[in-house]
Structures are given as C-alpha cells and as structure tokens.
C-alpha cells in the first residue's frame, strides 16, 4: 500500500469531519456491494463479494466425517484450539513498493521463494509483501465448522480474527447442533481468499462467508445400519438431493473506524491508515450482538463504544438486507 502525504491525510480527515469522504460518500455509507455465488464450481458453496475495490472469495467444502470418536469428541467439546501459520498471501497484493520492504521487518518473518527454487523459512524478503497473511485454523465447539482464512491486513492480529469469526459466524445455535460421540457428521471447511484489498476486509469476508453458506448444498446422506456394530456404517452420499442451510440468522460484521471525532463505515485502506481505533461489531438479523472487537492504538471511552455499537446495529440492518436480497436473487436464478 502506498503511503500518504501529510496534505492528503489532512484532506481525508477534513472530509470525514465534514461528512464528505474522498469518493463522495457520507460517513455511514457503504461502497457499492456486488455479490456473486457459485464462482468455484468444485466447492460445495462459494461466493465472491466486492465492496468497492475490495474483493474476497469464500468457499465452503464439506467432508463426511464418519464416527466422531471419543478422542475427537473431547477435543471438540473442549476449549478453542487455534493453530496459526503465517504465510505469504495471495498473489494479488503485489504492489509493494520500497516502503513496504522497509516495513517488512516489523511484521516478522515471511516466506519466500529463492531464485534457486528452494523454499526458505528464514526471512529472505524476496517475494515479500509488507503486510502479513494470517492463516488461521479454528476448531470450535461445534464440529461442523473449521474456519480457515487467508488474509492480509497490517492492523489485524490473529486473536482478533479468531475470536471474531468464531463468535460471529458460529453464533447461530439453531443452524447447527452439537454432535455426540458415535454420530456421523459433516466437517465443513470454510476458506476465504482475498483477491484485492482496499480496506474493510472483515466486513467483506463475513458477508462472503454468509453468502457462501447459503449457497452450500450438503448432499443428502443415507446411512444404512450394518448388522454388526463393529463395522463402519455404510454411507451413501447422494448426488442429486441437497440440503440448504438457512443462513438468515448468520450475523454480519460491521466495522466502525474512528478518525478524529467521527466514525465511518466501510473505510478504504487510505482512510484506515488514518484511524485511531476501530470497533468491529457482529450483528445478526434480530439486532443482537454476536461478537465485538476493538483494534487500534488509541483508548476509547466506554460511552463511545456503546455509541459505536448502536450505530453499527443501525447500519447493519441495511447491509443484512442487501445481502439477503442478493442471496434470494441467487437462489431464484439457479
């Protein structure tokens, strides 16, 4: 990401203060949202969401998991286990200039490809991107969902994203059920890929995951009981019939970025560079808060946080309605 001069930063701050941002939006307006489903035919469900120049693809793949064995069950019902792997992210973020390579030391190691073709683990800074990618593996309480997200954002920390996606997406208890030992269940893998980043990745990703889940068809499974209990049950995975998720209660994430004395919604990366702090709130259709996180260096007064939550609730209604209408349109089409 290119840096900004003092004059440009001043201009951006002025725009936010005067309720007229650089592209003419008001403070609480989203950029043009465009949603497409079924972009990756090989996955069970996929969606591409564009918020202005930010573009993310989310896919859902499922694997039949036969028999939840006791060991797995213990892990599943236990606390969250998080494995973090830091990786160089997706191709598209290639416009790092000199500034980024200077910054890279701050963000820790990257992986690169040497000229001789050998992969290295030490910071070689070759094909390096100033910003890091976070590859997060989350096994939650519900054995269904394994969320893996590849992202890149200088301000996002691993724990933020983990807590966030987990609490927000998994919050809808009615969509899933707890699995007992010995049951046969589906293991869902959700992948997020950032194609192009121009700020506000969390909102885009959460929206993409919601739409991808709605697009997912879980094949109907017929389990035939075998005579002896020792053998594995025969599982017949149907190719024709699919179950659809009801994603109307899946929450979305609205990120409010505080610049100066005002909050803005759907910040571009230029505006995000000016932020003092940001609060991401996950809200569902009923207006309930499913998750909340704050990033940024500045401290916030609690009253400010309550105010931001209520603004986020208000803004999320519009966002959810846009996503829902896109989901319906996609279902109607195909």
């Amino acid at each position, binding site marked *: 990401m290119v840096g900004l001069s003092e004059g440009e930063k001043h201009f951006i701050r002025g725009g936010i203060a005067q309720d007229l941002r650089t592209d003419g939006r008001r403070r609480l307006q989203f950029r043009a949202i465009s949603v497409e489903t079924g972009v990756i035919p*090989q996955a069970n469900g996929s969606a591409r969401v564009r918020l202005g120049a930010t573009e993310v693809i989310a896919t859902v793949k499922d694997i039949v998991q036969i028999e939840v064995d006791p060991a797995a069950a213990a892990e599943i019902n236990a606390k969250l286990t998080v494995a973090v792997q830091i990786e160089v992210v997706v*191709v598209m973020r*290639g*416009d790092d*200039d000199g500034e980024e*390579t200077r910054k890279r030391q701050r963000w820790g190691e990257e992986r690169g490809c040497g000229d001789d*073709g050998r992969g290295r683990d030490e910071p070689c800074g070759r*094909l390096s991107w100033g910003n890091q990618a976070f590859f997060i593996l989350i096994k939650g309480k519900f054995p269904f969902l394994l969320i893996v997200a590849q992202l890149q954002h200088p301000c996002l920390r691993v724990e933020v994203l983990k807590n966030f996606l987990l609490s927000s997406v998994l919050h809808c208890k009615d969509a899933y059920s707890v699995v007992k030992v010995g049951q046969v269940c589906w293991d869902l893998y959700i992948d997020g890929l950032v194609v192009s980043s121009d700020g506000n990745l969390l909102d885009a990703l959460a929206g993409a995951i919601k739409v991808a889940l709605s697009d997912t068809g879980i094949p109907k499974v017929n389990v035939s009981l075998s005579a002896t209990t020792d053998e594995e049950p025969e599982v017949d995975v149907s190719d024709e019939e699919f179950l659809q998720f009801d994603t109307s209660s899946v929450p979305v994430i609205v990120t409010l970025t505080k610049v100066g004395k005002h909050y803005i919604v759907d910040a571009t990366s230029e505006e995000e560079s000016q932020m003092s702090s940001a609060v991401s709130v996950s809200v569902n259709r009923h207006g309930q808060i499913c998750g909340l996180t704050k990033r940024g260096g500045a401290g916030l007064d609690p009253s400010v946080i309550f105010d931001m939550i209520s603004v986020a609730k208000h803004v999320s209604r519009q966002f959810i309605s846009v996503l829902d209408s896109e989901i319906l349109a996609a279902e109607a089409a195909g």
Partner: protein
Amino acid sequence: MEYVNPLTGFRVDGRRPNEMRQLKGEVGVVARADGSALFEMGNTRVIAAVYGPREVQNKGQQVNSKDALVRCEYRMADFSTGDRRRKPKGDRRSTEISLVIRQTMEASILTHLMPRSQIDIFVQVLQADGGTRAACINAATLALADAGIPMRDIVTSCSAGYLCSTPLLDLNYIEDSAGGPDVTVGFLTKMDKVTLLQMDAKLPMDTFETVMDLAIEGCKAIANYIREVLLENTRRLECQRG
C-alpha cells in the same frame, strides 16, 4: 480403469484423444496489477497478475543491471483441489513450479529493454483439475502482454499423456493421477521453438515423439486463441480511447 473406451474411443470426460478442453481467457481481472489475466482450461482455473517493470525492491537480488529481473510465484488456493489440502511447510511443488514458470517466461521477455527494473509474475490457482502448470504459463503470457511488457513471442503450454496405448491431449486430474506419462511442453509459436519440456514416468522414444508432437499441436491451438483474446482486447481499448 478404462481411460479410453475401446469401443467409442471417448475418454473419461467424453473428449476424443486429441481434443483439448474448453479454453477461456480474460484480461484485466485484477484492478491494481499492471497486467492480469484469468485463464481456464476445462475446470482448471488460474489467475495471473503481473507487476512491472518497476524499481528493484531488493538491490541485493539484482545480479545484472543490464537486464530486468523477473520473479515468479505460484500458489494454489486451499480450496483448489477436490479434497482440501493442508499445505505442508515449504511446499516443494510450488517452488518448483515457480521456478519453471519464471524460466519459461524469462526466455521470452526482452529483458534488455528494461534495465534496472523488476517484473513480478504471480500466479494463483483457483481450481485445479490437471494441467495447472500449462494453464499458469498461458495465463502468465496473457498477463504479460496485457501489461505491455515486450516479448519475443507468445509462450503457450499444453500437456499430453499416453494411456491405454493412445496419446491423449490435455490431461485432466483423473488421467493425470493414473500413473501414466505426463509430458508438459512450453512452446514459442512463431519462432517454432520449444522452451519447456517436462515429463514424468517413462516412454519409449518413438512414442515420446508422437506425444510431444501432439502437445505442440495443442500449444499452437492455444496460441491462436490467446492471440484472438489479445487482439480483441487491444481493439476494444483503442476504440474506447478515442
């Protein structure tokens, strides 16, 4: 398993032995890149993005100041293959393919016209169904042409194999994992030169020549298609410019 039906001569997906999968190429898919392309060969879908020529980021890497530095990175998305792969650390295959693509493209780019600069090629596989290497090279060619980087010739690539005593063009994943030979050819069409040749498993010499010729035919067909896509794109941009 019968990869080629002895009665009808059709393959697993209904193609004839010398028939290629459906091609689709699109230019300009990544807004921020200097050049970008999306290339599909059947179910294999690949995005390539090119940044450059721009200032060299890491002066230590610049060996020859008279030529441009070409770098390439190949990545597969986690959802790209049928069963979701967990990438092991230091994925050897990715680094090998990155090197292969870089060498292939470097042979074609006129690097002496852009001294002291670097060109970055990034290829991301969105969906893998066999022939990813070939699709990546084709996508990289499209992206480089879109970025306005001077090249000697259009580099195209295609794979071919030999199963059930028949040379097969453009293997998909099922045929690729059958364990038979898999020949990947990178070809400069106008100059009629081979720039990349890779094979695994073993083949008798005369069969090898047949298979390689078949792959070269495939490369020529892809080159015609790529030429049309680029021509159409250039015409459109010029007309819109006014």
